[in-house]
């Protein structure tokens, strides 16, 4: 079996016409659904999966806003380490 013959086989098989569904097929499907009505309800992971890109974008935006906010607020007021050292200096002086 050479490649030419194999390709000929594939292309001939590809020309086969698909079988057509019988008339009323959609009604048979509905009958099946009626007999097996269970339909998956949305689980939390489904909802998260559906919202994933949007949720990720919103979360990234919130994080970025927090970082920027913290940066801006920290430039006006003394940093936490400054405040801590100031407090410890005061305590040393008082003692």
């Amino acid at each position: 079996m050479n490649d030419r013959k194999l390709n000929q086989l594939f292309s001939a098989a590809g020309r086969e016409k698909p079988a057509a569904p019988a008339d009323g097929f959609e009604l048979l499907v509905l009958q099946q659904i009626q007999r097996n009505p269970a339909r998956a309800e949305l689980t939390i992971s489904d909802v998260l999966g559906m919202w994933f890109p949007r949720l990720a974008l919103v979360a990234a935006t919130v994080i970025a806003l927090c970082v920027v906010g913290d940066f801006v607020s920290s430039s006006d007021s003394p940093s936490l380490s400054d405040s801590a050292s100031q407090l410890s200096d005061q305590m040393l002086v008082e003692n």
Partner: protein
Amino acid sequence: MTAVAIYLGAPPSRRQALACFGERRADKLKRGLQSERPVSDDAELIERIRAGAHEEYAELVRRHQSHVFAILYRYERDHHRLEDLAQDTFLKAWRSFAQFDGRAPFQHWLSKIAVHAALDHLRKQKRSQNEIGFAELGEDALDWLHNEDKQTDLDASQAREILSAAMRKLSPEDQLVLTLLEIEDRSGKEISALTGWNPVTVRVRALRARARLKKALEGLEKK
């Protein structure tokens, strides 16, 4: 499958099917199918189904049934079993309807379900049969197979016969990848999207599957 029971005699007529479905719902469905307000868009139809108009699912099935049959008939030649497989596909789609997020067209989503249904079907078949069905090949197919210099075009059904016989030697995954790539002429990217396998896996699997098929066909030639 229940459809097999339905098909013990002649396929049920539309009226019989409607009677089975229940008078009230059938009336509603008939009205829906004859459509006082035709819904041109899948998205709108899907919204209506989600809102509780479950009968509208018949219209969605009607729109996409040919596409699903076109995917599945490559894996099942018997018409009744093919119809069972297609019903199974639409039933699975119904059951996971909530997971359809509308980011891709409904047909793409349905194609994935059909491909996975085909893979499950091949796995079930593989468990029950493993031998190459040489005896099933017709005379013309055998003649083409044995004649190295045969230049004439091979008939589509003969080609299908030969491939079905040889593919039984392959794993279900190999059969699927060869069918999608070589017979349906789909790209690696498409196959990757349909199967969920990564593109490298698709390429490697296709190469190996082709080599295995060649070997199986050579086995047939020698018989």
